[in-house]
């Protein structure tokens, strides 16, 4: 790693060279674990920088969860009060709303791959002497971080829907959000790599995200559903994020056992109630699988 200037020794203390000073000659080292880490880090940081400079995005991605929570939640409360055993509907759907806001932000982050392709920046990353996997990993981590920040903003609203600010509860939800954010970004990146135009991506997103949201049980308990819906519900990755989150919330509420049984029945596989940790494991495993597919796809494009 020899790096030299024209006048060795003068480089450190001397004023930074201008156009007519000595030439600062840098040397690009062979690819190493370290250089891959640097690549991952800078791709990750780029996502954060872009998120930070895009205030509008922070606000717009908040609109939807707020709409669901306070408009839909308050409105339907009048119809459903008989079935919720005294629990406010807003409290019930809150975990689902947390998930959907994380999911939307994560998908939007993944969409930046399509923008990057359209605006040419992807090419700059493609020709760099780093592994394609480093770029994909950096992108997924970046998207996950951004989605998590957005999730935390929604998490701050907990008090408004009668969910206590208990440290363990918040920590648990944060962890689940992180997992979900990562998995959804990997999922989005996997799709975005194959898509050349933003309009198509938006279409695909509408086609996938909304069904995933509705089927997941974000808005209703996942038991006693018609058979076909039960099957779809168990196949929906979002189910495994909403359910443990809801359990965490309900564990911190003082409500009747009847209400708990009705509203938090848990996810069952052939009658067996799936424990929360396994649900988290399912999300992580799905995320890793999709990350691998994304890396494979990205490495095989020219």
């Amino acid at each position, binding site marked *: *790693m020899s*790096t030299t200037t024209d006048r060795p020794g003068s*480089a450190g203390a001397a004023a*930074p*060279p*201008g*156009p007519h*000073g000595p*030439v*600062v*000659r*840098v*040397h*690009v*080292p*062979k*690819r*190493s674990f*370290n*250089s891959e880490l*640097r*690549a991952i*880090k*800078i791709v990750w940081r*780029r996502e954060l*920088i*872009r998120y930070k*400079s*895009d205030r509008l995005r922070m606000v717009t991605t908040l609109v939807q969860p707020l709409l669901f929570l306070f408009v839909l939640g308050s409105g339907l409360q009048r119809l459903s009060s008989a079935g919720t055993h005294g629990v406010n509907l807003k409290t019930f759907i809150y975990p689902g709303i947390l998930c959907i806001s994380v999911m939307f932000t994560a998908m939007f982050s993944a969409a930046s791959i399509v923008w*990057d392709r359209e*605006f*040419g*920046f992807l*090419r*700059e*990353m*493609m*020709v*760099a*002497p*780093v592994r394609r996997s480093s770029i994909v990993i950096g992108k997924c981590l970046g998207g996950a971080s951004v989605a998590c920040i957005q999730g935390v903003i929604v998490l701050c609203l907990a008090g408004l829907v009668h969910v206590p600010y208990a440290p363990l509860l918040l920590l648990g939800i944060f962890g689940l959000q992180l997992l979900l954010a990562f998995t959804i970004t990997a999922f989005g990146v996997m799709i975005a790599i194959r898509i050349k135009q933003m309009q198509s991506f938006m279409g695909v997103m509408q086609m996938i995200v909304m069904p995933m949201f509705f089927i997941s049980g974000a808005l209703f308990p996942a038991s006693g559903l018609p058979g076909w819906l039960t099957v779809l519900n168990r196949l929906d990755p979002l189910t495994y994020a909403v359910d443990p989150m809801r359990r965490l919330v309900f564990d911190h509420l003082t409500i009747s056992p009847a209400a708990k049984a009705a509203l938090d029945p848990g996810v069952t596989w052939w009658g067996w109630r799936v424990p929360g940790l396994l649900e988290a494991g399912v999300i992580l495993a799905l995320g890793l699988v999709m990350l691998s597919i994304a890396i494979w796809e990205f490495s095989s494009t*020219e």
Partner: protein
Amino acid sequence: MSESPNGSTAPAIVVRQLDKRFGEVHAVRGVDFEVATGEVFGFLGPNGAGKTTTINMLCTLAKPTSGTASVAGHDVVSERDDVRRNIGLVFQDPTLDGYLTAAQNLKLHAELYGVQSDLVQPRMQQVMTMVGLWDRKDTEVATFSGGMRRRLEIARGLMHSPRVLFLDEPTIGLDPQTRRSIWTYIRELKEREEITIFMTTHYMDEAEWCDRIAIMDHGQIVALDSPEALKAQIGKDRVSIHTDDDDAAIAALRDRFGLDARVAEGAVTFGVPAGEEFVPRLFAELGIPIKAVSVSRPTLDDVFMSYTGTTIRDAEEDSSKLRNRVMAQMMGGRR
């Protein structure tokens, strides 16, 4: 660098029988050339002649169908990473991130290329000062004009001190003043850093700046030499005349003077050794009214015309059809 023992440096680029097909379109047809270290080498030809395809193969962005190429001593297929570490790229289409500032774009590049951390800042200042953008370093790129962006791309391409800088149409779509300043940077670069520059252009006047140029047409190199040598080979002045009946004029030129004339850019054009002395004879003996006449010393346009039988502007129109075909092929092939 180290592999130049007795002042004789290994060539920066060696290309042998390089060939590329996109389906039925034969974009590059067995090209051979070498570029010496420190040279400014220009690839000249109309759009669709195969320049960008060739540059993409040299930059490891496209795989050759057959043939070999090495850049900075490394094979573009088997040593892709080594090639990438040693080259800088400035593409025809912009590849900057508009949401980031100029400095952030360069920093990102340096990180991706693994530039030693303590040298990132001084190197950044150097390359940005060179293209006159140092005072704009904290401005978002989205607010930059086309010329500023191109200059920033050049600065970025230089961030990691590449041994070969590839510029694909670096001045396309820019105003004459910006084009001139970009050429000033390129020449200055050559003075200051041990760098080889490989560029494509379809502006004839720009090709004059190169040490050597290769004229490419329909996927083949039809001429390769210094601009002066190429012009000397022509050895004739170019005479263009406007008449009411071009066909009759061409026939008359053939019959009376034994000259082979063509219509180029709307004028009957031909080459004669001493143009000014020929014009009085032309008026006296042609027998067809001449509305206007012009005589010019050989230019690269004439060189281009003598090798390809057309001017670059006329060739451009023909090739746009071919280009559409190539695009259709690529779209179909990829998905």
